[in-house]
């Protein structure tokens, strides 16, 4: 069993209520933190090695220490609960089952960065989760953990929830800030970074739900204890939301030392591929990260067991590796068509592009169109090279990383599954009625 520090109490009955959460040791980190100097909390988080859980994996303590602190200017903490990366549903789980863990982490983190008014930007569709969080905030206020002079410390803090309204781009931190200001979620040109000019031009920290919830354990047990869990620069635990063709989809907390093979096949986690099928491919970190064929997923190009952590999942770079991303782990079995799947993601990114940059706005539409053509048996060989060319021209030429997020899945699909694309083009009639199957993508597994 992996050590659990986030979800340990998720199944305790009525843990959503203040009474039970307190009985189980809740809000201890707040009592402790308020006796510390804010800077020492930042140092503790640095020592923990915690990396942002929203996708980019940037060290949280470091991010906090970059926050500008001009005299007389408000600072803001904003929690990113937009969670709209396909394959990702871990933040929802955390907020639904352990709302107080997020609120506790929010108050401690607000104290650390000096934010007296903090916001949780939650995707609009999670309306019932908003109600759960609102109830937790009310309870926290009644208990004296929010409001003026919290626990006699002299620190004032309010937390407000802000509902989005359906736009993936509002997960990107500057798009989110625009949206929080009541505008369209158009990402801003950086620099200036939010740490200098964020919400209403004030210094702002944006952190993911899971990142903020992890701060609770770091304060309770200490940064060193947190850093001892996991391996290398993948410290602590990570929530993985597993979906696709597996026996046990759901949200799992792992300690980043286990192998991908164990995660997929053991009963403690995904429980193997559903319906006795074979593993074909996997998108291991949310839809934006490169897809890997089974053969490269379970072992790295060097032939080592691939592990569920930042370093190992990205081992080999994009040539033979992928990324940890947001922890959205989607498994595809032998019956899944890679062209169709890539098309579905291309449509998604086309739909979600905010349209500010021509390479992203035009490129995503173009990629979708070409993939439609191939999927419907009308592709030509030169379309594959054209797709490759388009995705390359998006990468690095846009305001925000959505451009890359749209380019990478297409690039990886062509890189690893080119023969499946070619088969679609060479067999236009057959590809409409039957899938390509496993091809050579899973050799490693078929023989074992």
């Amino acid at each position, binding site marked *: 069993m992996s050590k659990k520090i986030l979800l340990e109490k998720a199944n305790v009955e009525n843990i959503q209520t203040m009474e039970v959460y307190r009985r189980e040791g809740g809000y201890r980190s707040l009592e402790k933190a308020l006796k510390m100097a804010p800077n020492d909390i930042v140092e503790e988080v640095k020592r923990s090695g915690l990396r942002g859980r929203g996708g980019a994996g940037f060290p949280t303590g470091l991010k906090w220490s970059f926050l500008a602190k001009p005299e007389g200017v*408000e600072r803001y903490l904003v929690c990113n609960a937009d*969670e*709209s*990366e*396909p*394959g*990702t*549903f871990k*933040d*929802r789980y955390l907020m639904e089952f352990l709302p107080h863990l997020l609120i506790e982490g929010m108050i401690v983190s607000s104290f650390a960065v000096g934010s007296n*008014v903090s916001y949780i930007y939650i*995707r*609009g*569709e*999670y*309306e*019932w989760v908003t109600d759960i969080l609102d109830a937790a905030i009310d309870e926290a206020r009644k208990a004296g953990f929010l409001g003026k002079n919290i626990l006699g410390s002299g620190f004032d803090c309010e937390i*407000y929830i*802000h*509902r*989005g*309204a*359906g*736009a*993936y781009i509002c997960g990107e931190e500057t798009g989110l800030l625009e*949206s*929080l*200001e*009541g*505008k*369209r*979620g158009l990402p801003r040109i950086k620099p200036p970074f939010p740490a200098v000019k964020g919400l*209403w031009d004030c210094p702002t920290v944006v952190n993911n739900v899971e990142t903020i919830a992890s701060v609770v354990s770091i304060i309770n047990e200490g940064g060193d204890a947190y850093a001892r869990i996991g391996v290398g620069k993948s410290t602590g635990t990570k929530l993985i*939301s*597993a*979906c*696709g*063709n597996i026996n046990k*989809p*759901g*949200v799992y907390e792992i300690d980043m030392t286990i192998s991908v093979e164990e995660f997929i096949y053991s009963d403690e986690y995904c429980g193997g591929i559903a319906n006795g099928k074979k593993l074909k491919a996997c*998108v291991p970190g949310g*839809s934006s990260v490169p897809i890997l064929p089974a053969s490269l997923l379970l072992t790295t190009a060097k032939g080592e067991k691939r592990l569920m952590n930042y370093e190992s999942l990205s081992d080999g770079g994009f040539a033979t590796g992928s990324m940890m991303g947001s922890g*959205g782990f*989607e498994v*595809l079995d032998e019956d*899944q068509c890679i062209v*169709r*799947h890539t098309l*579905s*993601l291309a449509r*998604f990114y086309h*739909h*979600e592009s905010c349209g500010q940059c021509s390479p992203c706005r035009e490129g995503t539409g173009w990629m979708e169109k070409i993939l439609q053509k191939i999927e419907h048996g009308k592709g030509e060989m030169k379309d594959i090279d054209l797709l490759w060319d388009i995705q390359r021209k998006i990468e690095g030429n846009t305001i925000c990383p959505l451009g890359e997020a749209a380019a990478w899945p297409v690039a990886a699909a062509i890189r690893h599954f080119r023969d499946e694309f070619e088969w679609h083009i060479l067999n236009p009639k057959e590809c409409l009625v039957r899938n390509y199957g496993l091809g050579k993508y899973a050799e490693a597994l078929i023989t074992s």
Partner: protein
Amino acid sequence: MEFSNDSLKKVHELISHYPEGKQKSALLPILHIAQKEFDGWLDVPVMDYVASILNIEPIEVYEVATFYSMFNLKPVGKYVFEVCQTGPCMVKGSDDIISYIKEKLDISVGETTPDGLFTLKTVECLGACGYAPMMQLGKTYREHLSKEKVDAIIAECKN
């Protein structure tokens, strides 16, 4: 056109969440309330009314309302089936569910049944990929959809 007293109270409470002069920040949350109160969609007079409450230009409301997928800019049925069609749901058969709903309700995606009861929309990932296929219906998520479940949901709405 005016909000009910209850809604108006909520609106002012929402505005108080943001610093003075930053009342425009309350726009998205208020549009949610407006859409709920005024028949599930945002007509131009509704948007103008919201602009007047926030003391901003109507265009500032229009550009926001048109940007976000949850805001309806034309009338919708009493029940809106928003079926997810992104990769993880597709892998679990969302296409079949969408076809089945089309057939049962005899409408295409984006249409409303003649009795004004149902609208069918396709949407992108709603953060329920592990419980696919799924759809949103009002405030609730309906997960692990099958044809039988779709039948039951339709029956439930008709009752």
